[in-house]
Protein backbone atom coordinates (compact mmCIF):
# COMPACT_ATOMS: atom_id res chain seq x y z
CA UNK A 1 0.00 0.00 0.00
CA UNK A 2 2.60 2.52 1.12
CA UNK A 3 4.74 1.78 -1.84
CA UNK A 4 1.88 2.50 -4.18
CA UNK A 5 1.13 5.77 -2.45
CA UNK A 6 4.64 7.19 -2.63
CA UNK A 7 5.24 6.08 -6.18
CA UNK A 8 5.74 9.11 -8.47
CA UNK A 9 3.39 9.69 -11.39
CA UNK A 10 3.98 6.97 -13.91
CA UNK A 11 2.23 4.37 -15.98
CA UNK A 12 0.63 2.93 -12.84
CA UNK A 13 -1.41 6.09 -12.36
CA UNK A 14 -2.76 6.26 -15.87
CA UNK A 15 -5.43 3.75 -14.97
CA UNK A 16 -8.11 5.49 -12.95
CA UNK A 17 -9.33 2.20 -11.57
CA UNK A 18 -6.81 0.49 -9.27
CA UNK A 19 -6.20 -3.01 -10.48
CA UNK A 20 -4.03 -4.51 -7.74
CA UNK A 21 -5.44 -6.95 -5.25
CA UNK A 22 -4.90 -4.65 -2.26
CA UNK A 23 -5.56 -1.29 -3.85
CA UNK A 24 -8.84 0.25 -2.82
CA UNK A 25 -10.71 3.33 -3.87
CA UNK A 26 -11.11 5.83 -0.99
CA UNK A 27 -14.80 4.91 -0.65
CA UNK A 28 -14.27 1.18 -0.42
CA UNK A 29 -11.28 1.81 1.85
CA UNK A 30 -13.53 3.60 4.34
CA UNK A 31 -16.19 0.90 3.95
CA UNK A 32 -13.70 -1.87 4.64
CA UNK A 33 -12.34 0.07 7.62
CA UNK A 34 -15.77 0.49 9.19
CA UNK A 35 -16.66 -3.15 8.58
CA UNK A 36 -13.41 -4.37 10.14
CA UNK A 37 -13.66 -2.12 13.21
CA UNK A 38 -17.27 -3.11 13.75
CA UNK A 39 -16.53 -6.79 13.31
CA UNK A 40 -13.46 -6.60 15.56
CA UNK A 41 -15.16 -4.83 18.44
CA UNK A 42 -18.13 -7.15 18.35
CA UNK A 43 -16.64 -10.49 17.42
CA UNK A 44 -12.92 -10.82 16.88
CA UNK A 45 -11.66 -9.11 20.06
CA UNK A 46 -14.04 -10.93 22.45
CA UNK A 47 -13.15 -14.21 20.76
CA UNK A 48 -9.48 -13.45 21.13
CA UNK A 49 -10.07 -12.52 24.76
CA UNK A 50 -11.77 -15.80 25.56
CA UNK A 51 -8.98 -17.74 23.87
CA UNK A 52 -6.56 -15.65 25.90
CA UNK A 53 -8.41 -16.43 29.12
CA UNK A 54 -8.37 -20.13 28.30
CA UNK A 55 -4.66 -19.97 27.61
CA UNK A 56 -3.94 -17.97 30.77
CA UNK A 57 -3.75 -21.07 32.92
CA UNK A 58 -1.34 -22.70 30.50
CA UNK A 59 -1.78 -25.72 28.27
CA UNK A 60 -1.83 -28.11 31.22
CA UNK A 61 -4.76 -26.38 32.92
CA UNK A 62 -6.64 -26.22 29.64
CA UNK A 63 -6.10 -29.90 29.00
CA UNK A 64 -7.00 -30.87 32.56
CA UNK A 65 -10.29 -29.02 32.38
CA UNK A 66 -11.30 -30.71 29.17
CA UNK A 67 -10.24 -34.19 30.21
CA UNK A 68 -12.00 -33.89 33.52
CA UNK A 69 -14.57 -36.68 33.33
CA UNK A 70 -17.54 -34.50 34.17
CA UNK A 71 -16.65 -31.74 31.69
CA UNK A 72 -15.91 -34.28 29.01
CA UNK A 73 -19.29 -35.95 29.57
CA UNK A 74 -21.02 -32.59 29.26
CA UNK A 75 -19.18 -31.78 26.02
CA UNK A 76 -19.86 -35.22 24.59
CA UNK A 77 -23.54 -35.02 25.43
CA UNK A 78 -23.78 -31.56 23.85
CA UNK A 79 -22.11 -32.52 20.60
CA UNK A 80 -23.99 -35.82 20.25
CA UNK A 81 -27.39 -34.28 20.97
CA UNK A 82 -26.68 -31.37 18.64
CA UNK A 83 -25.55 -33.81 15.94
CA UNK A 84 -28.71 -35.90 16.23
CA UNK A 85 -30.87 -32.80 16.21
CA UNK A 86 -29.08 -31.55 13.09
CA UNK A 87 -29.74 -34.82 11.24
CA UNK A 88 -33.42 -34.81 12.19
CA UNK A 89 -33.75 -31.14 11.24
CA UNK A 90 -32.04 -31.68 7.91
CA UNK A 91 -34.67 -34.25 6.96
CA UNK A 92 -37.81 -32.94 8.64
CA UNK A 93 -37.00 -29.31 7.94
CA UNK A 94 -36.77 -30.13 4.23
CA UNK A 95 -40.07 -32.01 4.41
CA UNK A 96 -41.79 -29.08 6.12
CA UNK A 97 -40.35 -26.62 3.58
CA UNK A 98 -41.50 -28.90 0.75
CA UNK A 99 -45.04 -29.09 2.12
CA UNK A 100 -45.16 -25.32 2.61
CA UNK A 101 -44.01 -24.61 -0.95
CA UNK A 102 -45.50 -27.41 -3.03
CA UNK A 103 -48.79 -28.31 -1.39
CA UNK A 104 -51.99 -26.34 -1.11
CA UNK A 105 -53.95 -26.91 2.07
CA UNK A 106 -56.15 -25.13 4.52
CA UNK A 107 -54.15 -23.23 7.12
CA UNK A 108 -50.96 -23.10 5.07
CA UNK A 109 -50.44 -19.39 5.65
CA UNK A 110 -50.90 -19.80 9.39
CA UNK A 111 -48.45 -22.69 9.53
CA UNK A 112 -45.98 -20.57 7.59
CA UNK A 113 -46.13 -17.94 10.33
CA UNK A 114 -46.14 -20.39 13.25
CA UNK A 115 -42.85 -21.93 12.02
CA UNK A 116 -41.03 -18.82 13.20
CA UNK A 117 -42.34 -18.90 16.75
CA UNK A 118 -39.44 -20.93 18.17
CA UNK A 119 -37.20 -18.27 16.61
CA UNK A 120 -39.05 -15.36 18.09
CA UNK A 121 -39.58 -16.73 21.59
CA UNK A 122 -36.98 -16.09 24.27
CA UNK A 123 -35.54 -19.56 24.74
CA UNK A 124 -36.45 -19.65 28.43
CA UNK A 125 -40.06 -19.23 27.31
CA UNK A 126 -39.52 -22.11 24.91
CA UNK A 127 -38.39 -24.17 27.90
CA UNK A 128 -41.48 -23.10 29.82
CA UNK A 129 -43.74 -23.99 26.90
CA UNK A 130 -42.30 -27.49 26.70
CA UNK A 131 -42.41 -27.85 30.46
CA UNK A 132 -46.12 -27.10 30.59
CA UNK A 133 -46.93 -29.91 28.16
CA UNK A 134 -44.18 -32.45 28.86
CA UNK A 135 -43.28 -31.49 32.47
CA UNK A 136 -44.13 -33.00 35.84
CA UNK A 137 -47.66 -31.54 35.63
CA UNK A 138 -48.08 -32.81 32.07
CA UNK A 139 -51.72 -33.10 30.99
CA UNK A 140 -50.73 -35.92 28.61
CA UNK A 141 -48.76 -37.81 31.22
CA UNK A 142 -45.33 -37.44 29.60
CA UNK A 143 -42.54 -36.13 31.77
CA UNK A 144 -39.28 -35.40 30.01
CA UNK A 145 -37.72 -33.21 32.65
CA UNK A 146 -34.28 -34.33 33.69
CA UNK A 147 -33.89 -36.73 30.76
CA UNK A 148 -31.76 -36.73 27.63
CA UNK A 149 -34.95 -37.03 25.56
CA UNK A 150 -35.98 -33.74 27.14
CA UNK A 151 -32.78 -32.07 25.95
CA UNK A 152 -33.30 -33.55 22.50
CA UNK A 153 -36.85 -32.22 22.35
CA UNK A 154 -35.89 -28.76 23.55
CA UNK A 155 -33.09 -28.54 20.98
CA UNK A 156 -35.43 -29.69 18.21
CA UNK A 157 -37.92 -27.04 19.25
CA UNK A 158 -35.50 -24.12 19.16
CA UNK A 159 -33.74 -25.17 15.93
CA UNK A 160 -36.84 -26.06 13.90
CA UNK A 161 -37.03 -22.91 11.72
CA UNK A 162 -33.43 -22.89 10.47
CA UNK A 163 -33.58 -25.54 7.76
CA UNK A 164 -37.18 -24.69 6.84
CA UNK A 165 -36.33 -21.05 6.29
CA UNK A 166 -33.17 -21.67 4.28
CA UNK A 167 -34.69 -24.38 2.05
CA UNK A 168 -38.01 -22.65 1.40
CA UNK A 169 -36.78 -19.81 -0.85
CA UNK A 170 -34.57 -22.15 -2.88
CA UNK A 171 -37.51 -24.47 -3.43
CA UNK A 172 -39.69 -21.58 -4.57
CA UNK A 173 -37.04 -20.52 -7.07
CA UNK A 174 -36.65 -23.98 -8.63
CA UNK A 175 -37.78 -24.13 -12.26
CA UNK A 176 -40.76 -26.36 -12.92
CA UNK A 177 -39.26 -26.81 -16.39
CA UNK A 178 -36.34 -28.79 -15.06
CA UNK A 179 -38.56 -31.32 -13.34
CA UNK A 180 -40.72 -31.65 -16.44
CA UNK A 181 -37.58 -32.17 -18.50
CA UNK A 182 -36.50 -34.98 -16.18
CA UNK A 183 -39.98 -36.53 -16.40
CA UNK A 184 -40.02 -36.47 -20.20
CA UNK A 185 -36.60 -38.13 -20.16
CA UNK A 186 -38.20 -40.96 -18.23
CA UNK A 187 -37.28 -40.14 -14.64
CA UNK A 188 -39.75 -41.19 -11.95
CA UNK A 189 -40.76 -38.63 -9.35
CA UNK A 190 -38.39 -40.17 -6.86
CA UNK A 191 -35.46 -40.15 -9.28
CA UNK A 192 -36.22 -36.55 -10.21
CA UNK A 193 -36.17 -35.64 -6.54
CA UNK A 194 -32.97 -37.49 -5.80
CA UNK A 195 -30.95 -36.47 -8.84
CA UNK A 196 -32.37 -33.08 -9.81
CA UNK A 197 -34.11 -31.40 -6.88
CA UNK A 198 -32.04 -32.60 -3.93
CA UNK A 199 -28.67 -31.47 -5.35
CA UNK A 200 -30.12 -27.98 -5.74
CA UNK A 201 -31.36 -28.03 -2.15
CA UNK A 202 -28.26 -29.47 -0.50
CA UNK A 203 -26.43 -26.14 -0.10
CA UNK A 204 -29.51 -24.67 1.57
CA UNK A 205 -30.03 -27.74 3.76
CA UNK A 206 -26.43 -27.68 4.95
CA UNK A 207 -26.52 -23.93 5.54
CA UNK A 208 -29.66 -24.32 7.65
CA UNK A 209 -28.22 -27.36 9.40
CA UNK A 210 -25.01 -25.52 10.30
CA UNK A 211 -26.99 -22.69 11.82
CA UNK A 212 -29.14 -25.19 13.69
CA UNK A 213 -26.12 -27.10 14.93
CA UNK A 214 -24.41 -23.94 16.13
CA UNK A 215 -27.58 -22.95 17.92
CA UNK A 216 -27.93 -26.42 19.46
CA UNK A 217 -24.42 -26.61 20.94
CA UNK A 218 -24.88 -23.17 22.46
CA UNK A 219 -28.47 -23.59 23.67
CA UNK A 220 -28.92 -22.46 27.24
CA UNK A 221 -32.28 -20.88 28.07
CA UNK A 222 -34.63 -23.74 27.31
CA UNK A 223 -32.27 -26.32 28.83
CA UNK A 224 -32.02 -24.53 32.18
CA UNK A 225 -35.58 -25.58 32.91
CA UNK A 226 -35.65 -28.95 31.22
CA UNK A 227 -32.30 -30.69 31.44
CA UNK A 228 -32.19 -30.90 35.22
CA UNK A 229 -28.44 -30.42 34.94
CA UNK A 230 -27.38 -33.74 36.49
CA UNK A 231 -23.62 -34.27 36.06
CA UNK A 232 -22.75 -37.16 33.72
CA UNK A 233 -26.41 -37.51 32.79
CA UNK A 234 -28.05 -34.37 31.54
CA UNK A 235 -25.47 -31.65 31.98
CA UNK A 236 -24.71 -29.78 28.72
CA UNK A 237 -21.69 -27.63 27.91
CA UNK A 238 -23.37 -24.24 28.23
CA UNK A 239 -24.65 -25.08 31.71
CA UNK A 240 -21.23 -26.47 32.59
CA UNK A 241 -19.76 -23.07 31.69
CA UNK A 242 -22.25 -21.42 34.03
CA UNK A 243 -21.19 -23.80 36.79
CA UNK A 244 -17.52 -22.98 36.25
CA UNK A 245 -18.27 -19.27 36.47
CA UNK A 246 -20.35 -19.70 39.57
CA UNK A 247 -17.43 -21.65 41.05
CA UNK A 248 -15.16 -18.73 40.10
CA UNK A 249 -13.23 -20.86 37.62
CA UNK A 250 -12.88 -18.38 34.71
CA UNK A 251 -10.16 -20.38 33.00
CA UNK A 252 -12.28 -23.54 33.05
CA UNK A 253 -15.25 -21.69 31.59
CA UNK A 254 -13.05 -20.21 28.89
CA UNK A 255 -11.56 -23.62 28.07
CA UNK A 256 -15.00 -25.13 27.47
CA UNK A 257 -15.99 -22.04 25.47
CA UNK A 258 -12.94 -22.35 23.23
CA UNK A 259 -13.66 -26.00 22.60
CA UNK A 260 -17.26 -25.21 21.65
CA UNK A 261 -15.91 -22.55 19.33
CA UNK A 262 -13.63 -25.10 17.65
CA UNK A 263 -16.46 -27.61 17.29
CA UNK A 264 -18.64 -24.95 15.66
CA UNK A 265 -15.93 -23.93 13.20
CA UNK A 266 -15.07 -27.52 12.27
CA UNK A 267 -18.73 -28.36 11.74
CA UNK A 268 -19.36 -25.36 9.52
CA UNK A 269 -16.31 -26.18 7.41
CA UNK A 270 -17.25 -29.86 7.08
CA UNK A 271 -20.83 -29.09 6.08
CA UNK A 272 -19.62 -26.56 3.55
CA UNK A 273 -17.29 -29.07 1.95
CA UNK A 274 -20.02 -31.71 1.90
CA UNK A 275 -22.48 -29.34 0.30
CA UNK A 276 -20.03 -28.37 -2.45
CA UNK A 277 -19.31 -32.01 -3.20
CA UNK A 278 -22.94 -33.09 -3.35
CA UNK A 279 -24.08 -30.09 -5.33
CA UNK A 280 -21.45 -30.79 -7.94
CA UNK A 281 -21.97 -34.51 -8.24
CA UNK A 282 -25.70 -34.70 -8.90
Amino acid at each position, binding site marked *: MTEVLVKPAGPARTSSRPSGLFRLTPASGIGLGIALVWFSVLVLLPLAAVVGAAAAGGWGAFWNTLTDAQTFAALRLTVIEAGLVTVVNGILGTVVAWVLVRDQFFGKRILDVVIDIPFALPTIVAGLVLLSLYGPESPVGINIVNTRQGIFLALLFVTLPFVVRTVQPVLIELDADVE*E*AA*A*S*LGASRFTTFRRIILPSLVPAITAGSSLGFARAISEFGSLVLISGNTPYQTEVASLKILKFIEGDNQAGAAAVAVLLLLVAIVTIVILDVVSRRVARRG
Partner: protein
Amino acid sequence: MSIEVSGINKKYGDFVALEDINVSLPTGQLTALLGPSGGGKSTLLRIIAGLDTADSGSVEIEGVNATKLPPQKRNVGFVFQHYAVFKHMTVAKNVAFGLEIRKRPKAEVKAKVAELLELVHLSQFAHRLPSQLSGGQRRRLALARALAVEPSVLLLDEPFGALDAKVRKELRDWLRRLHDEVHVTTVFVTHDQEEAMEVADEIVVINNGRIEQIGTPDQLYDEPANDFVMGFLGDVTRLGNVRLRPHDIELALSPAVTPGTPPAFAGVIERTLRLGFELRLTVDVEGQGETTQVVLSRTHARALDLGVGTKVWLRPATGAISVPVLGVASA
Protein backbone atom coordinates in the same frame (compact mmCIF):
# COMPACT_ATOMS: atom_id res chain seq x y z
CA MET B 1 -49.21 -41.47 -38.68
CA SER B 2 -46.75 -40.75 -35.95
CA ILE B 3 -48.87 -38.31 -33.98
CA GLU B 4 -52.64 -38.34 -34.13
CA VAL B 5 -54.39 -35.63 -32.16
CA SER B 6 -58.17 -35.77 -32.19
CA GLY B 7 -60.87 -33.65 -30.63
CA ILE B 8 -58.62 -31.95 -28.06
CA ASN B 9 -60.28 -29.34 -25.86
CA LYS B 10 -58.59 -27.45 -23.05
CA LYS B 11 -59.88 -24.68 -20.83
CA TYR B 12 -58.20 -22.69 -18.10
CA GLY B 13 -61.15 -21.45 -16.10
CA ASP B 14 -63.19 -19.46 -18.60
CA PHE B 15 -60.34 -19.11 -21.03
CA VAL B 16 -60.51 -21.52 -23.95
CA ALA B 17 -56.92 -22.49 -24.70
CA LEU B 18 -57.71 -25.15 -27.32
CA GLU B 19 -60.94 -25.97 -29.07
CA ASP B 20 -61.59 -29.16 -31.02
CA ILE B 21 -58.05 -29.66 -32.32
CA ASN B 22 -57.55 -32.40 -34.89
CA VAL B 23 -54.13 -32.94 -36.48
CA SER B 24 -52.29 -35.92 -37.81
CA LEU B 25 -48.58 -35.74 -38.39
CA PRO B 26 -46.86 -38.37 -40.51
CA THR B 27 -43.69 -40.14 -39.38
CA GLY B 28 -40.45 -38.32 -40.10
CA GLN B 29 -42.06 -34.98 -40.87
CA LEU B 30 -40.87 -31.63 -39.54
CA THR B 31 -43.94 -29.65 -38.55
CA ALA B 32 -44.30 -26.11 -37.26
CA LEU B 33 -47.12 -24.98 -34.99
CA LEU B 34 -47.37 -21.35 -35.98
CA GLY B 35 -49.45 -18.62 -34.44
CA PRO B 36 -49.46 -15.52 -32.28
CA SER B 37 -48.46 -15.70 -28.61
CA GLY B 38 -51.19 -16.98 -26.35
CA GLY B 39 -52.87 -18.76 -29.26
CA GLY B 40 -52.59 -22.19 -27.67
CA LYS B 41 -49.74 -23.71 -29.66
CA SER B 42 -47.47 -24.35 -26.65
CA THR B 43 -50.40 -25.86 -24.77
CA LEU B 44 -50.95 -28.29 -27.64
CA LEU B 45 -47.27 -29.23 -27.60
CA ARG B 46 -47.38 -29.82 -23.84
CA ILE B 47 -50.48 -31.97 -24.21
CA ILE B 48 -48.73 -34.11 -26.83
CA ALA B 49 -45.79 -34.50 -24.41
CA GLY B 50 -48.07 -35.33 -21.49
CA LEU B 51 -46.95 -32.32 -19.46
CA ASP B 52 -50.50 -30.97 -19.55
CA THR B 53 -53.71 -32.93 -19.80
CA ALA B 54 -56.54 -32.11 -22.14
CA ASP B 55 -60.11 -31.79 -20.86
CA SER B 56 -61.27 -34.08 -23.65
CA GLY B 57 -59.94 -35.68 -26.80
CA SER B 58 -57.14 -38.14 -27.42
CA VAL B 59 -53.47 -38.24 -28.40
CA GLU B 60 -51.99 -41.19 -30.21
CA ILE B 61 -48.24 -41.56 -30.61
CA GLU B 62 -46.90 -44.22 -33.00
CA GLY B 63 -50.21 -46.03 -32.94
CA VAL B 64 -50.38 -46.17 -29.13
CA ASN B 65 -53.12 -44.28 -27.35
CA ALA B 66 -51.08 -41.98 -25.10
CA THR B 67 -53.92 -39.87 -23.73
CA LYS B 68 -53.61 -41.34 -20.26
CA LEU B 69 -49.87 -42.07 -20.28
CA PRO B 70 -47.57 -40.01 -18.01
CA PRO B 71 -44.74 -38.12 -19.77
CA GLN B 72 -42.23 -40.76 -18.64
CA LYS B 73 -43.96 -43.45 -20.71
CA ARG B 74 -44.54 -41.51 -23.94
CA ASN B 75 -41.02 -41.71 -25.32
CA VAL B 76 -41.17 -38.11 -26.36
CA GLY B 77 -38.19 -35.76 -26.43
CA PHE B 78 -39.09 -32.28 -25.25
CA VAL B 79 -36.89 -29.21 -25.64
CA PHE B 80 -38.02 -26.40 -23.40
CA GLN B 81 -38.17 -22.75 -24.33
CA HIS B 82 -35.79 -21.83 -21.52
CA TYR B 83 -33.54 -24.87 -22.05
CA ALA B 84 -34.30 -26.43 -18.62
CA VAL B 85 -30.79 -27.85 -18.44
CA PHE B 86 -29.66 -29.51 -15.23
CA LYS B 87 -27.42 -26.77 -13.86
CA HIS B 88 -25.45 -28.90 -11.43
CA MET B 89 -24.44 -31.49 -14.05
CA THR B 90 -21.78 -31.24 -16.71
CA VAL B 91 -22.78 -31.15 -20.36
CA ALA B 92 -22.00 -34.85 -20.75
CA LYS B 93 -23.96 -35.75 -17.60
CA ASN B 94 -26.95 -33.81 -18.86
CA VAL B 95 -26.98 -35.79 -22.09
CA ALA B 96 -26.39 -39.09 -20.26
CA PHE B 97 -29.26 -38.52 -17.81
CA GLY B 98 -32.02 -40.24 -19.78
CA LEU B 99 -29.78 -43.20 -20.60
CA GLU B 100 -28.56 -43.64 -17.02
CA ILE B 101 -32.15 -43.74 -15.84
CA ARG B 102 -32.79 -46.51 -18.33
CA LYS B 103 -29.83 -48.35 -16.75
CA ARG B 104 -27.97 -48.75 -20.04
CA PRO B 105 -24.45 -50.20 -19.75
CA LYS B 106 -21.80 -47.57 -19.00
CA ALA B 107 -19.86 -48.14 -22.23
CA GLU B 108 -23.01 -47.72 -24.31
CA VAL B 109 -23.94 -44.50 -22.49
CA LYS B 110 -20.46 -43.12 -23.03
CA ALA B 111 -20.48 -43.92 -26.73
CA LYS B 112 -23.97 -42.49 -27.24
CA VAL B 113 -23.12 -39.28 -25.38
CA ALA B 114 -19.96 -38.82 -27.44
CA GLU B 115 -21.93 -39.38 -30.63
CA LEU B 116 -24.62 -36.86 -29.69
CA LEU B 117 -22.18 -34.19 -28.54
CA GLU B 118 -20.46 -34.62 -31.88
CA LEU B 119 -23.80 -34.16 -33.63
CA VAL B 120 -24.59 -30.91 -31.81
CA HIS B 121 -20.98 -29.67 -32.01
CA LEU B 122 -20.43 -29.62 -28.25
CA SER B 123 -17.75 -32.31 -27.95
CA GLN B 124 -15.09 -29.95 -26.61
CA PHE B 125 -17.49 -28.70 -23.90
CA ALA B 126 -18.37 -32.14 -22.49
CA HIS B 127 -16.93 -31.40 -19.05
CA ARG B 128 -18.20 -27.85 -18.68
CA LEU B 129 -21.18 -26.82 -16.64
CA PRO B 130 -24.20 -25.37 -18.48
CA SER B 131 -23.55 -21.96 -16.91
CA GLN B 132 -20.33 -21.80 -18.94
CA LEU B 133 -22.19 -22.16 -22.24
CA SER B 134 -23.80 -19.53 -24.45
CA GLY B 135 -27.54 -19.46 -25.15
CA GLY B 136 -27.22 -21.21 -28.49
CA GLN B 137 -24.96 -23.88 -27.00
CA ARG B 138 -27.38 -24.52 -24.16
CA ARG B 139 -30.17 -24.97 -26.64
CA ARG B 140 -28.12 -27.51 -28.55
CA LEU B 141 -27.33 -29.25 -25.28
CA ALA B 142 -31.05 -29.46 -24.48
CA LEU B 143 -31.62 -30.92 -27.92
CA ALA B 144 -28.87 -33.53 -27.52
CA ARG B 145 -30.30 -34.50 -24.13
CA ALA B 146 -33.74 -35.00 -25.65
CA LEU B 147 -32.36 -37.01 -28.58
CA ALA B 148 -30.30 -39.29 -26.33
CA VAL B 149 -33.28 -41.44 -25.37
CA GLU B 150 -34.11 -41.98 -29.05
CA PRO B 151 -37.61 -40.54 -28.78
CA SER B 152 -40.24 -41.48 -31.35
CA VAL B 153 -41.25 -37.82 -31.42
CA LEU B 154 -39.19 -34.69 -30.81
CA LEU B 155 -41.06 -31.62 -29.56
CA LEU B 156 -39.47 -28.17 -29.40
CA ASP B 157 -41.04 -25.17 -27.71
CA GLU B 158 -39.90 -21.92 -29.39
CA PRO B 159 -36.50 -23.45 -30.21
CA PHE B 160 -35.17 -20.20 -31.67
CA GLY B 161 -36.59 -17.73 -29.20
CA ALA B 162 -34.47 -15.42 -27.05
CA LEU B 163 -31.39 -15.68 -29.22
CA ASP B 164 -29.79 -13.01 -31.32
CA ALA B 165 -30.59 -12.87 -35.03
CA LYS B 166 -27.38 -14.47 -36.26
CA VAL B 167 -27.52 -17.40 -33.85
CA ARG B 168 -31.20 -17.93 -34.69
CA LYS B 169 -30.36 -18.16 -38.36
CA GLU B 170 -27.54 -20.64 -37.75
CA LEU B 171 -29.64 -22.76 -35.44
CA ARG B 172 -32.46 -22.80 -37.96
CA ASP B 173 -30.29 -24.08 -40.79
CA TRP B 174 -28.73 -26.51 -38.42
CA LEU B 175 -32.07 -27.89 -37.18
CA ARG B 176 -33.19 -28.45 -40.77
CA ARG B 177 -29.98 -30.33 -41.55
CA LEU B 178 -30.18 -32.27 -38.30
CA HIS B 179 -33.70 -33.36 -39.11
CA ASP B 180 -32.62 -34.54 -42.55
CA GLU B 181 -29.92 -36.60 -40.84
CA VAL B 182 -31.82 -38.02 -37.89
CA HIS B 183 -35.30 -38.26 -39.39
CA VAL B 184 -37.20 -38.20 -36.14
CA THR B 185 -40.76 -36.87 -36.30
CA THR B 186 -40.38 -33.30 -35.11
CA VAL B 187 -42.85 -30.65 -34.06
CA PHE B 188 -41.79 -27.16 -33.10
CA VAL B 189 -43.68 -24.15 -31.88
CA THR B 190 -42.93 -20.71 -33.23
CA HIS B 191 -44.55 -17.32 -33.61
CA ASP B 192 -42.20 -16.32 -36.41
CA GLN B 193 -43.68 -17.06 -39.85
CA GLU B 194 -40.35 -16.74 -41.60
CA GLU B 195 -38.89 -19.40 -39.33
CA ALA B 196 -41.80 -21.73 -39.95
CA MET B 197 -41.73 -21.20 -43.72
CA GLU B 198 -38.02 -21.81 -43.92
CA VAL B 199 -37.68 -24.87 -41.72
CA ALA B 200 -40.94 -26.81 -41.75
CA ASP B 201 -42.33 -29.39 -44.17
CA GLU B 202 -45.81 -28.59 -42.98
CA ILE B 203 -47.26 -25.73 -40.98
CA VAL B 204 -50.25 -25.81 -38.65
CA VAL B 205 -51.54 -22.29 -38.10
CA ILE B 206 -53.17 -21.91 -34.69
CA ASN B 207 -54.97 -18.83 -33.49
CA ASN B 208 -57.28 -18.32 -30.50
CA GLY B 209 -57.18 -22.01 -29.65
CA ARG B 210 -58.30 -23.15 -33.09
CA ILE B 211 -56.57 -24.45 -36.17
CA GLU B 212 -56.88 -21.90 -38.98
CA GLN B 213 -55.17 -23.94 -41.67
CA ILE B 214 -52.81 -26.87 -42.21
CA GLY B 215 -50.57 -27.07 -45.24
CA THR B 216 -47.12 -26.83 -46.76
CA PRO B 217 -45.46 -23.40 -46.63
CA ASP B 218 -46.29 -22.86 -50.32
CA GLN B 219 -49.92 -23.84 -49.89
CA LEU B 220 -50.35 -21.46 -46.97
CA TYR B 221 -48.73 -18.62 -48.83
CA ASP B 222 -50.47 -19.23 -52.17
CA GLU B 223 -53.86 -20.41 -50.98
CA PRO B 224 -54.49 -18.91 -47.55
CA ALA B 225 -57.75 -20.20 -46.12
CA ASN B 226 -58.69 -16.85 -44.67
CA ASP B 227 -57.82 -13.32 -43.81
CA PHE B 228 -55.89 -14.34 -40.67
CA VAL B 229 -53.59 -16.87 -42.34
CA MET B 230 -52.91 -14.50 -45.18
CA GLY B 231 -52.07 -11.67 -42.79
CA PHE B 232 -49.92 -13.85 -40.58
CA LEU B 233 -47.76 -15.26 -43.35
CA GLY B 234 -46.74 -12.06 -45.05
CA ASP B 235 -47.50 -8.42 -45.71
CA VAL B 236 -51.08 -7.75 -46.67
CA THR B 237 -52.85 -4.67 -47.88
CA ARG B 238 -56.35 -3.78 -48.95
CA LEU B 239 -57.50 -2.80 -52.40
CA GLY B 240 -61.23 -2.28 -52.85
CA ASN B 241 -62.95 -5.13 -51.07
CA VAL B 242 -60.13 -7.66 -51.17
CA ARG B 243 -56.90 -8.18 -49.24
CA LEU B 244 -53.80 -9.10 -51.17
CA ARG B 245 -50.02 -8.90 -51.06
CA PRO B 246 -48.50 -5.46 -51.79
CA HIS B 247 -46.32 -6.92 -54.54
CA ASP B 248 -49.40 -8.33 -56.28
CA ILE B 249 -50.71 -4.87 -57.18
CA GLU B 250 -50.10 -3.43 -60.61
CA LEU B 251 -49.54 0.27 -60.84
CA ALA B 252 -50.17 2.44 -63.91
CA LEU B 253 -50.14 6.17 -64.68
CA SER B 254 -53.38 6.06 -66.66
CA PRO B 255 -56.69 4.25 -66.23
CA ALA B 256 -56.22 2.56 -69.62
CA VAL B 257 -58.34 -0.57 -69.63
CA THR B 258 -57.12 -3.63 -71.43
CA PRO B 259 -60.05 -5.93 -72.23
CA GLY B 260 -60.47 -8.69 -69.66
CA THR B 261 -58.73 -6.95 -66.74
CA PRO B 262 -60.60 -5.70 -63.71
CA PRO B 263 -61.22 -1.95 -63.39
CA ALA B 264 -58.48 0.11 -61.76
CA PHE B 265 -58.71 2.14 -58.54
CA ALA B 266 -57.57 5.74 -58.73
CA GLY B 267 -55.38 7.17 -55.97
CA VAL B 268 -52.59 9.54 -55.00
CA ILE B 269 -49.16 8.55 -53.63
CA GLU B 270 -48.96 9.73 -50.07
CA ARG B 271 -45.58 8.46 -48.98
CA THR B 272 -42.60 6.59 -50.46
CA LEU B 273 -40.09 4.47 -48.59
CA ARG B 274 -36.97 3.02 -50.13
CA LEU B 275 -35.83 -0.33 -48.70
CA GLY B 276 -32.82 -1.73 -50.52
CA PHE B 277 -33.89 -2.79 -53.99
CA GLU B 278 -37.58 -2.17 -53.45
CA LEU B 279 -39.77 0.88 -53.11
CA ARG B 280 -42.80 0.88 -50.83
CA LEU B 281 -45.58 3.28 -51.68
CA THR B 282 -48.49 4.31 -49.53
CA VAL B 283 -51.38 5.21 -51.82
CA ASP B 284 -54.51 7.04 -50.78
CA VAL B 285 -57.17 5.33 -52.87
CA GLU B 286 -60.29 7.36 -53.65
CA GLY B 287 -63.36 6.29 -51.73
CA GLN B 288 -61.48 3.71 -49.62
CA GLY B 289 -61.24 4.24 -45.89
CA GLU B 290 -57.66 3.02 -45.51
CA THR B 291 -54.53 3.47 -47.59
CA THR B 292 -53.09 0.77 -49.86
CA GLN B 293 -49.47 -0.41 -49.74
CA VAL B 294 -47.73 -1.15 -53.01
CA VAL B 295 -44.28 -2.63 -53.48
CA LEU B 296 -42.33 -2.02 -56.69
CA SER B 297 -38.78 -2.64 -57.78
CA ARG B 298 -36.72 0.55 -57.85
CA THR B 299 -36.02 0.29 -61.57
CA HIS B 300 -39.73 0.02 -62.29
CA ALA B 301 -40.47 3.01 -60.08
CA ARG B 302 -37.75 5.08 -61.68
CA ALA B 303 -39.12 4.32 -65.17
CA LEU B 304 -42.52 5.63 -64.09
CA ASP B 305 -41.00 8.67 -62.35
CA LEU B 306 -43.08 8.29 -59.17
CA GLY B 307 -43.09 10.70 -56.25
CA VAL B 308 -45.35 11.97 -53.51
CA GLY B 309 -48.49 13.46 -55.06
CA THR B 310 -48.35 11.44 -58.30
CA LYS B 311 -51.78 10.28 -59.40
CA VAL B 312 -51.82 6.51 -60.05
CA TRP B 313 -54.22 3.72 -60.94
CA LEU B 314 -54.03 0.40 -59.07
CA ARG B 315 -55.37 -3.04 -59.94
CA PRO B 316 -54.65 -6.58 -58.72
CA ALA B 317 -52.04 -8.29 -60.89
CA THR B 318 -53.13 -11.22 -62.99
CA GLY B 319 -53.10 -14.36 -60.86
CA ALA B 320 -52.83 -12.38 -57.64
CA ILE B 321 -53.93 -14.21 -54.49
CA SER B 322 -56.62 -12.37 -52.66
CA VAL B 323 -59.20 -12.96 -49.94
CA PRO B 324 -62.34 -10.91 -49.44
CA VAL B 325 -62.34 -8.33 -46.66
CA LEU B 326 -64.81 -9.50 -44.04
CA GLY B 327 -67.80 -7.31 -43.30
CA VAL B 328 -67.01 -4.63 -45.88
CA ALA B 329 -69.43 -3.88 -48.67
CA SER B 330 -68.09 -3.43 -52.17
CA ALA B 331 -66.24 -0.12 -52.38
